[in-house]
């Protein structure tokens, strides 16, 4: 459990306009917009979505490639089209979406403090959904030494530069990481006329290879250096090269490039959750939630990649659909039950979400537990234990692969005893 949660000191709020919607959704990405559409459509009252970007839609806005909407809308769209679709649906359902509107902290009475071009105000809703998403760790957070030249990006910044602002990047790039998003970076680089000259992955295989068929890989044609890490960024002014190291041999070499893209390695945008004093999970670094997506703060729910950094946009959207029902129950006076059973991940899993099981709660969204693995396992045999006793064991037909979420049917938890200890999920 994360012990660093703190609350911001309460500044004076006298005279600040106060809004009192029924539901406040913080973050207008796939999870927030879908939650808002469902809530407004179900008559939850005034549903207010605030988003700090100039347009709602979240990360798909600048992910200008196809593959969005499969699981939630049952069709395949480009990122920007998907973002527009979700925004339109929420608006059509009656949700009030305010962009360029940022929650900057919490007032003493628990109201959100907000800044927008229209001014500074407070929002005190009956229920809150945190849907603030996740971002990639930049080079500095990965503690990679060297020079600090231009031309070093995260995928998010790269896609914004290329797809939203139509800016040029360099000619020859190194992509750090082998997650799904890393291949997305490769696509963006090619569109910008920059050759993805090398992908670097610390794993023995590029994490998300399995997601691509051989034909897909042939089209992308990016050489992958596996079991490799970047040890230094070189270049004054503009990037000139990176130094890379083979993890097994220790051999180092420099690889020329004018662009470096740090991809994946996601961290939830948990600032608001943490400053609200909400309990965070040590693995995900997002709020600890139960299967109803309640956080430790009464009336505050969370959904999307804030909880599982990072899953695909449609899974985040389905979280939004899942949380809406629970928020409505809360608005109708259903209060949070006291106790819950803790769920924990064992090696090679880094985290599991959600983390709390309660006897009368619904199963998690899509009936799936989400996990993140640090090892590639072709035929994963998932084992659920409680107090040393095996509750369930099942070999799943899909691999556990680093760099993408591993899904486990929540039915494997059915035999957990409500009065027992922590339920542990691992591999045999």
């Amino acid at each position: 459990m994360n012990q660093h949660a703190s609350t911001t000191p309460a500044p004076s709020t006298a005279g600040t306009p106060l809004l009192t919607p029924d539901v406040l959704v913080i973050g207008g990405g796939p999870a927030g917009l879908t939650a808002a559409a469902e809530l407004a459509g179900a008559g939850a009252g005034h549903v207010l979505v605030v988003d700090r970007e100039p347009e709602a839609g979240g990360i798909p806005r600048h992910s200008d490639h196809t593959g969005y909407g499969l699981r939630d809308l049952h069709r395949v769209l480009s990122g920007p089209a998907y973002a527009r679709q979700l925004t339109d649906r929420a608006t059509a359902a009656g949700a009030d979406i305010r962009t360029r509107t940022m929650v900057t902290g919490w007032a003493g009475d628990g109201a959100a403090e907000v800044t927008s071009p229209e001014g500074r105000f407070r929002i005190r809703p009956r229920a809150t959904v945190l849907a603030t998403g996740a971002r990639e760790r930049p080079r500095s957070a990965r503690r990679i030494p060297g020079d600090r030249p231009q031309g070093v990006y995260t995928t998010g910044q790269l896609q914004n530069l290329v797809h939203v602002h139509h800016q040029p990047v360099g000619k020859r790039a190194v992509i750090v990481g082998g997650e799904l998003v890393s291949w997305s970076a490769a696509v963006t680089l090619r569109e910008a006329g920059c050759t993805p000259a090398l992908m670097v992955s610390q794993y023995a295989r590029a994490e998300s290879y399995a997601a691509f068929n051989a034909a897909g890989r042939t089209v992308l044609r990016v050489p992958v250096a596996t079991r490799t890490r970047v040890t230094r960024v070189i270049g004054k002014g503009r990037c000139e090269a990176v130094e890379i190291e083979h993890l097994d041999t220790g051999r180092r070499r420099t690889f020329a490039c004018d662009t470096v893209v740090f991809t994946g390695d996601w961290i939830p945008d948990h600032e608001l959750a943490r400053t609200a004093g909400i309990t965070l999970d040590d693995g995900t670094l997002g709020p600890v939630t139960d299967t109803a997506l309640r956080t430790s703060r009464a009336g505050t729910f969370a959904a999307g990649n804030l909880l599982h950094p990072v899953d695909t946009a449609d899974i985040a959207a389905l979280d939004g659909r899942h949380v809406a029902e629970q928020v409505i129950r809360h608005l109708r006076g259903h209060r949070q039950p006291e106790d819950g059973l803790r769920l924990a991940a064992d090696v090679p899993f880094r985290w599991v979400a959600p983390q709390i099981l309660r006897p009368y709660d619904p199963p998690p969204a899509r009936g799936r537990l989400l996990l993140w693995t640090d090892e590639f396992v072709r035929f994963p045999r998932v084992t659920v234990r409680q107090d040393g006793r095996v509750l369930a064991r099942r070999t799943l037909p899909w691999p556990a692969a680093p760099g993408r979420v591993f899904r486990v049917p929540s039915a494997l938890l059915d035999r957990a005893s409500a009065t027992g200890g922590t339920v542990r999920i691992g591999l045999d």
Partner: protein
Amino acid sequence: MTPATPRAPHAGVHDVAVIGGGIVGAAIARELSGYELTVALVEARDDVGDGTSKANTAILHTGFDATPGTLESRLVARGFHLLSEYAKATGIPVEHTGALLVAWTLEELDALPGLRDKAEANGYAHCRLVGADEVYRTVPGLGDGVLGGLSVPDESIICTWTTSLALATDAQQRGTDILLRHSVTGVEAHDGHTTLTTTAGDVRARWVVNAAGLGADHIDRLFGHDRFTVTPRRGELFVFDKLARPLVDKIVLPVPTSRGKGVLISPTIYGNVMLGPTAEDLTDRTDTGTSEDGQAYLLRKGEQLMPRLLAEEVTASYAGLRAATEHGDYVIEATPEQRYLVVGGIRSTGLTAGMAIAEHVRTLLADAGLDLESRGRLPGPPHMPNIGEAAPRPYEDAELIAGDPAYGTIVCFCERVSEGEIRDACHAPVPARGLDGLRRRTRAMNGRCQGFYCGAAVDALCRRYTRDGCGDRDDAPTVPTETSVPTETSVPTETSATTVPTRPEGQR
């Protein structure tokens, strides 16, 4: 602000040229342009405060631990008061956090009373010995094994970027010509004046002050002296996420040893926590890269000092170079026959001492024969935008936003920088000319996401406002035609690369 009297140099010859647009050079230019003098501030880079001044520990020192009797000790103590007052007048962010020296060994514990006596010899009488329990009460996150401490209640944190800018802006408003991208390559003595050859043309001046920081010894040699050699001493630092700030609300200093001042943990004026610096003598005066060894060392130290800090995310790491010399003190000497004065060996204390150094330089120049005639009316000190956390920022100011919604349009989310501030920085008297200058004026892109969300938007605003404001900009992404690093692997031939989608410049 009152406009300065136009002060054209007589026949193209300035009364004084100050080489070096860091804190020290800017403070000297500001001081001298308070008199009836024409002053040029000659800076090699494309911005003021872009060298040593931009990357330090940003501590406003009381001077408690200086070597008593040195020029440095006197100027730091004086500078502490001058800069504290100046910060109030200009809005340079300062937080009076106080510092705590922490002893982890018996040897360090035994050294504390001596440090208190030394502080008193330096004219600073407020240090107090404290027990381990009080140390832990003050900074509960410290690692195990603290034996005791010494409190230094007046040590403070300050914004080094705003300090450079305030001094340079003030100098400019008093009439100083700021000549950027003028790297001095040669010196020619003439009858009555000196010609400085620079990469952007000649600069002529009757008197020359050398405050060139890491290059001060090179300039000094151009004048025919051999007084000192600058050894760049690299200091690497980690900046931890703002969410770590509740862990540290005081500067936590190690007990200094013969090997240096050691690694400290300090809050920053922007609400982060800093760990560092290392101390490593280099030969390359441009090597501000961070290193594997440096980072490993800091993490080891951090693990002992405050293990909980290491669980927090790192927002940034950087390295600065101190202009160390073989002398134990500042080298500030006038050579009247050359109408020349050197200001060398100004280490990290230069941030605090800068304004006092400027006063001292002024008196030395007067003694050397420079006529100093007071000017009747000086423009008031500039009012600097607040980029610190101690005072309200524009995004929190309802009245300001009501008057101009651009201050309510947050562009950089992590640092809560508004479009209004970015615009202002690009239109300031000493304007931002690119992203790095903008970072130092607004904090934009300095936050935990390092541009994931805001990088492209900030870049677009910077291009828009520098175009309509101050014109030149040279940091647009360019592609080197040739790299000096050999390519190793064979790269598949690219055949299907599409062209970059471009739009007209005015596109939003």
